[in-house]
């Protein structure tokens, strides 16, 4: 690309918006568009998605002319560990039950913090398990398995 990106924040957000806009408009082509008189399921999303794509392109265009701040460092470690802990929880919950899922969630996410001390995190896990079982299992009567179903 010959044009220089002077505002990376505008450029990347524009790319995300335009990309999602195009994705919605393209998907909407599978549904009947209808007419203004009888708006089909695709009518409104196509309108909104088209507008979003346009504005996304405006942001991309603007990024070549108007200077902006650089993007702050992405905290990849926290991002991966927090989201990983969440996915792990969702995956484990129906296999191993609530208690192991919470333990996994707490240990993995805590590793995303600044300090990680095994003893401290273990105590935290016990406290949170007691809270969760008390509130959600006994208090609210949620249909959860506490441990693996045998």
């Amino acid at each position: 690309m010959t044009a220089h990106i002077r505002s990376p924040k505008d450029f990347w957000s524009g790319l995300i918006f335009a990309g999602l806009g195009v994705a919605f408009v393209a998907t909407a082509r599978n549904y009947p568009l209808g007419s203004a008189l009888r708006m089909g399921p695709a009518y409104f999303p196509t309108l909104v998605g088209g507008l979003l794509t346009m504005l996304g392109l405006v942001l991309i265009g603007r990024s070549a002319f108007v200077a902006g701040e650089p993007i702050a460092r992405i905290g990849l470690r926290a991002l991966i560990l927090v989201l990983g802990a969440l996915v792990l929880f969702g995956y484990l919950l129906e296999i191993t039950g609530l208690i192991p899922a919470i333990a996994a969630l707490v240990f993995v996410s805590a590793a995303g913090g600044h300090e990680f001390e095994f003893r401290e995190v273990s105590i935290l896990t016990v406290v949170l398990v007691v809270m969760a079982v008390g509130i959600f299992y006994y208090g609210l009567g949620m249909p959860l398995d506490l441990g693996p179903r045998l």
Partner: protein
Amino acid sequence: MSDPGLFHNLILGFSVALTPMNLLYCFIGCLLGTLIGVLPGLGPFATIAMLLPITFNLGPTSALIMLAGIYYGAQYGGSTTSILVNLPGESSAVVTCLDGYQMARQGRAGPALAIAAIGSFFAGTVGTLMIVLFAPPLAAIALKFGAPENFSLMLMGLVMAVVLAHGSIVKAICMVLLGILFGSVGTDVDSGMERFTMGLPELADGISIVGVALGMFGIAEIITNLELKEKREIFTSKVKGLMPSREDLKRSWAPILRGTGLGAVFGLLPGTHSIIASFTAYTVEKKLSKHPEKFGTGMIEGVAAPESANNAAAQTYFIPMLTLGIPTGAVMALMLGALMIQGITPGPQVMTSKPDLFWGLIVSMWFGNLMLVILNLPLIGIWIKLLTIPYRFLFPAILMFCCIGSYSLNNAPIDVYMAGLFGLLGYVLAKLDCEPAPLLLGFVLGPMMEENLRRTLVISRGDPSVLITRPISAAFLLIAAAALLLIIAPAMRARREQAFAEG
């Protein structure tokens, strides 16, 4: 509409709000609100989103009473830590730090807290009264609106929210549009066709607002917070002597009145956070003072005015949501979400079709404010202790509540993954200076706008000009256009000047 009279309505409200269960939920809400107001790094958005799934079992009135308590309780709790440890637990309490903390350093934390409490309670009472007085006539007008008016009103609401949000307008508009698109995922109400579900049967009912809110506010916030170095001062000062002196009261009553008035007006505007209300109130006091130079050194006016302002704003903030069904901020979007989850269509008809919910909620707000005064002052010691909980213990707990909460929506892991997906999106977009609140507004309003646009066009036989030929609808659109122009014009001017300067 037969008007049963204000008195009758209030009696109904009291009878609902004073049931032991509702008092309990109001209390729980205020307690939780204060708690999160005190704890930095956990805001009302994430908390309300976390509790939304739990409120499914409560019934709409109790659910809203509790969620409302969380919101205004947080506004209240934020001031305590501002004064005592110079740490605003809630963003709107930043202004209170300026003079409140200075007063605490001079050993006058007690009077500062007491004035903040008195001001907040007064403002909360006035704000609640304003809802009582203005909500019925507003709703009566809104009930006459047809589909074109509703569509234009929602459009205006979104435009105002964008205009008054801080940061780039284009990005805020994009966030609204993206929110509307996410809102359209699921079964189309008109044709019964499934849209954008990517073949996932779990998405047939649409993306849950809980997942969006938990992800964009709760999870994205955790990841952002973890990047910051944890720093917390250890604070061990005792609060002694709560009573403000006669001099304090004499200096405070006028700022409390002015702050309340300003806050009440700012609360009505879409998109303004109560921080603007408290900041404006502070600036006004400084301008009016005979000693503006002393502000920032522990002036009690600098505590009284902003604290009253943010609490008044927190109450009147409910008016557009309750009367028009238009959320003017993220918290109200969540409240609307809570209503819809309970099967109630938000809008002006709520007041007449569910008077117990409407008036019960309003009266409970006043009780909530009373509880906050009683709750906060004697328990200050406990709140301060809570501040010493390090974030490394808090965030796994928050994450756990987010996960279990989203799982409980359908007892399926898909909602947990959805929250994670929106957490990722929210985090990345926040890095690119895109605020999450407009997305949430678009998400909630999108389906209603589509429905009203569809009905408008059916009525007008496909002619969109009906939106500008019906006077009320045209007025809304005109206001929206004017607001948009007003905000774009100075920006363009500034950019032109900048270009000239560079040339």
